[in-house]
C-alpha cells in the first residue's frame, strides 16, 4: 500500500520557509530557462512570419542577404518573364523589384545610432506582403519623396513618426504613413518608392526580386531553370526559407547561451533541493521508522519522498513560469548580425516552452531528491525508531 499522496504535500506545507526558499531558487532558474527559450522563439516567429510560403526571393548568388545582394536590371527583367508567376491586376505579373539598403538613424531619447532597413518597393510589394497594413496616415504617392514607416520604427527612431522628416541621400523624405505588419520583420523597416530611392542612393541595381508562384510545388524546377540560365548569377529561395536563414545564427546563439546558462544555474538550484530534501529526511527519522513499523514497505517510502521532491520542483516551475509569461509584453530590439540591421521582436510563450520548463523543473526536483529519498528508504526500522 502506498503512502497517501497528501503526506508528501503536507510535509512541504509544514516547513513553509524552507520550501519557499528552495522553490524560489528553482523558480529563478526556470524563469531564466523559459525567458531565453521565449526570446529565441520570438525571434524565429518574427522572421518566419515575415515570409509567405508562396513567395520567392531572388538574390545574387553567394550573397546571404538582400543587403549584400545586387540584381542587374536585365536579370530582373528575365525573372519577370518567367511563366511561373501569378498574374495580378491589369495582367501584370505579381512581382516586385526591390532595393534594400541600410541607413544610420538615431534612436529617440538615447540618440544612439542604429542601422535601419530602407526598402524601395514597387506597387506589387504591398500585395505580395499581405501582413503589411496601413495603420495611420496614407500610402506614399509613387514617384515622390514620401515614405512610410513600420510601427516599431515610428515609435523608436527620431524622425520616424507621421509628418516628420528624415534626411538621407541628400534629400528630405516625409513620413506620410505608418504601417502595421504585426510581429514581422517589416515592422522594423521604412518603405519608399524604389525608383526614387535608387536615384538618390545612386544604385543602378536592384537588391532582390520577389514574386508569388502560381504553384509552390513547382519551386524546385523553377529554381533549377533560373539558376542554370547562363545569363543569370542569382539564386532563388522560398521567402519563408530566406527569413529562416536570416534568423538562424542569432536564434542559435540565444539557444546555446540560454542552455549553458540554465545548466550552470540549475546546479545551484539542484544543490538547494538536495539540501532541503536531506534535511527533510534527517528531521523525520523517527517518523519514517513509524511508517515502516506500520507496514509501509521501502518502495512506498521511496515513492513518498520522490513525490515530495517532484512537488517541490513543480512549485518552483510554476512560480518561474508565471513571471516569465508576463515577459510577452516586453519587446527587445537588437541588431541581427546576418542582416546587419535593427530588428524588434518580443518574447513568445509557446505550449512547447511551457512543457519544457515544467519538465525541466521536475528534473531539477528529482535530481535533488533522489539521493535523500534512497537514504530514507534504506533505513532499518529498529534503528530509526530508537534514534531521537
Amino acid at each position, binding site marked *: 500500500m502506498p503512502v497517501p499522496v497528501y503526506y508528501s504535500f503536507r510535509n512541504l506545507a509544514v516547513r513553509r520557509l524552507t520550501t519557499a526558499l528552495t522553490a524560489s531558487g528553482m523558480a529563478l*532558474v526556470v524563469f531564466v530557462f523559459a525567458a531565453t527559450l521565449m526570446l529565441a522563439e520570438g525571434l524565429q516567429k518574427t522572421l518566419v512570419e515575415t515570409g509567405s510560403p508562396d513567395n520567392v526571393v531572388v538574390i545574387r548568388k553567394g*550573397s546571404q542577404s538582400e543587403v549584400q545582394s545586387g540584381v542587374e536590371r536585365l536579370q530582373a527583367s528575365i525573372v519577370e518573364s518567367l511563366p511561373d508567376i501569378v498574374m495580378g491586376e491589369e495582367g501584370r505579373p505579381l512581382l516586385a523589384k526591390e532595393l534594400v539598403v541600410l541607413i*544610420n538613424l538615431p534612436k529617440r531619447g538615447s540618440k544612439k545610432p542604429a542601422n535601419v532597413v530602407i526598402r524601395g518597393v514597387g506597387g506589387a510589394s504591398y500585395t505580395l506582403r499581405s501582413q503589411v497594413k496601413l495603420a495611420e496616415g496614407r500610402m506614399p504617392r509613387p514617384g515622390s519623396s514620401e515614405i512610410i514607416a513600420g510601427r516599431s520604427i515610428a515609435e523608436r527612431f527620431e524622425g520616424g513618426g507621421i509628418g516628420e522628416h528624415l534626411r538621407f541621400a*541628400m534629400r528630405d523624405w516625409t513620413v506620410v504613413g505608418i504601417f502595421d505588419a504585426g510581429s514581422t520583420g517589416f515592422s522594423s523597416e521604412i518603405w519608399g518608392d524604389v525608383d526614387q530611392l535608387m536615384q538618390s542612393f545612386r544604385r543602378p541595381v536592384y537588391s532582390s526580386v520577389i514574386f508569388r508562384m502560381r504553384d509552390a510545388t513547382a519551386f524546385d524546377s523553377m529554381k533549377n531553370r533560373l539558376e542554370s540560365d547562363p545569363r543569370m548569377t542569382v539564386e532563388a529561395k522560398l521567402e519563408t526559407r530566406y527569413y529562416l536563414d536570416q534568423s538562424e545564427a542569432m536564434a542559435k546563439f540565444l539557444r546555446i547561451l540560454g542552455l549553458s546558462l540554465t545548466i550552470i*544555474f540549475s*546546479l*545551484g538550484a539542484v544543490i538547494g533541493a538536495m*539540501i*532541503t530534501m536531506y534535511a527533510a529526511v534527517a528531521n523525520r527519522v523517527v517518523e519514517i521508522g513509524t511508517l515502516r513499523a506500520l507496514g509501509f514497505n521501502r518502495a512506498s517510502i521511496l515513492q513518498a519522498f520522490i513525490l515530495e521532491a517532484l512537488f517541490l520542483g513543480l512549485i518552483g516551475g510554476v512560480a518561474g513560469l508565471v513571471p516569465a509569461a508576463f515577459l510577452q509584453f516586453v519587446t*527587445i530590439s537588437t541588431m541581427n548580425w546576418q542582416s546587419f540591421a535593427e530588428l524588434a521582436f518580443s518574447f513568445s510563450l509557446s505550449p512547447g516552452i511551457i512543457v519544457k520548463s515544467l519538465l525541466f523543473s521536475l528534473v531539477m526536483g528529482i535530481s535533488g531528491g533522489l539521493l535523500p529519498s534512497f537514504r530514507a528508504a534504506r533505513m532499518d526500522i529498529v534503528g530509526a525508531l530508537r534514534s531521537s
Partner: protein
Amino acid sequence: MFYLKLSLRNAFRHPLRAVLTITGVAVAILAFGLLRTLVGLWYLGVETSSSTRLITRSSISLVFTLPVSYRERIRHIPGVTEVSTMNWFGGIYVSEKNFFPNFAVEPKTFLALYPEFIIEDAEKKSFLKDRRGAVAGYKLAAKHGWKIGDRIILKGTIFPGEWDFVLRGIYRGAQRSTDESQFFFHWDYLNESLRRTVPRRADQVGLYVIGVDSPEKAPEVAQAIDATFRNSLAETMSETEKAFQLSFVAMTEAIMIAIKIVSYVVIVIIMVVAANTMAMTARERIAEYATMKALGFKWSHVAITVFGESLFIALLGGAIGVLLTFPTANLLEKELSQFFPVFRISPVTIYFQIAAATLVGVVSSVFPVYRASTINISEGLRRIG
C-alpha cells in the same frame, strides 16, 4: 578567537550540507565571473582602440562606400599623419562556420597605422611585394593549419566569385588583448579585379583609417574632414576609433544588458540556497542557542557565531569559485577562440566576485541571526528539535 573557532566547527557539523552549500556558492561565483568577463569582451574592441586613429565612413551607413579620391584630400588636412583604406570583404573560407573578419586594406599605410599587429620584416616585405599576398593572425593561421606560402581561397559574399590569396605573413599581437584572428589583403587586388568585372564598384573605399598626430586634435580633424565633403555626393562621418567601435557594441546592447541581469540572477539563486541552509541550521539549533544564552552569553555573542558561520561558508565557496575561474577561462579561451579572440579575467571581476560572495554570506545570515538573538531561553530549551 573563541567565536571564530565556534563558527568554523559549527559550519562543518553537517559535512554533507556544508559541502553542498559551498559547492553551490563556488559554481555561482564562477558563473558570475565568467558572465561578467563575457560582457567585458563585447567591449574589447572599444578598449583596444587607439586614441590617435579616426575612422571615416559614409554618412548614410556602412554599406555605402566613399570614392578613393578622398584619400589625397584627407591627407592634406592639417593634423593628419597617415591615411589608409579598408573594405570589409566578408569572404567565406570553405564554410560559413569558419567565420573570421577579412579586409582589403592599403597594406603599407595600414601596417603603419596599426603597430599592434607585429609582423617580421622579411614577411612584411614579401607581403608588400605580392599583390595577391595576405596576412593572417597567428590564431587564425594555427586554427586552419596555414603556413607561409599556402594558397587560400575565399568565397565572396559582397564581391562575387572565388578569390585566390597567398599567405605571405602571420602577425602576432603586441598585447594579449590584440585580436589575432583577422585576415588582411591588398586593396589593389580587389580593386583591379572589380575594374575588370564590375567597373561601377571599382575605386570605392569602405572606410578610411586616419592617423592624427595627437589625441587632442582628433575631434578637430574629424570635423575638418566632414566639413570638406559636406554637400558632396558622398558625405562622410568621421569619429574616433573608440566611438566607431562603441556604435557597433551599442547595436547589440540589449543582449549584453540581458546577460548582465542574468549574471545577477545567479547570485540571487545562490543567496536563496545559502539562506535556506542557514535557516535550517538555525531551526535545528534553537535549543543550543537557548543553552548558550542560559550560560550567560549575550545575544550579540550568539548572533556573531551564526553570522560568522554563514560568512565563512559563503567566502570559502567564493574563494573556490574565484580559483576555478582561471583554469575555466583558459579552457574557454581555447574552445571559443573563433568567437572571442581572448578570454581574460580582469582584476575588477575578481573584486566583484569577492563582493558577491560576501553579500551572499551576509544576506543569508539575516534571518537566522534574528532568530538566534531573539530566542526566549525557556521556550528554546523546551523545544525538542
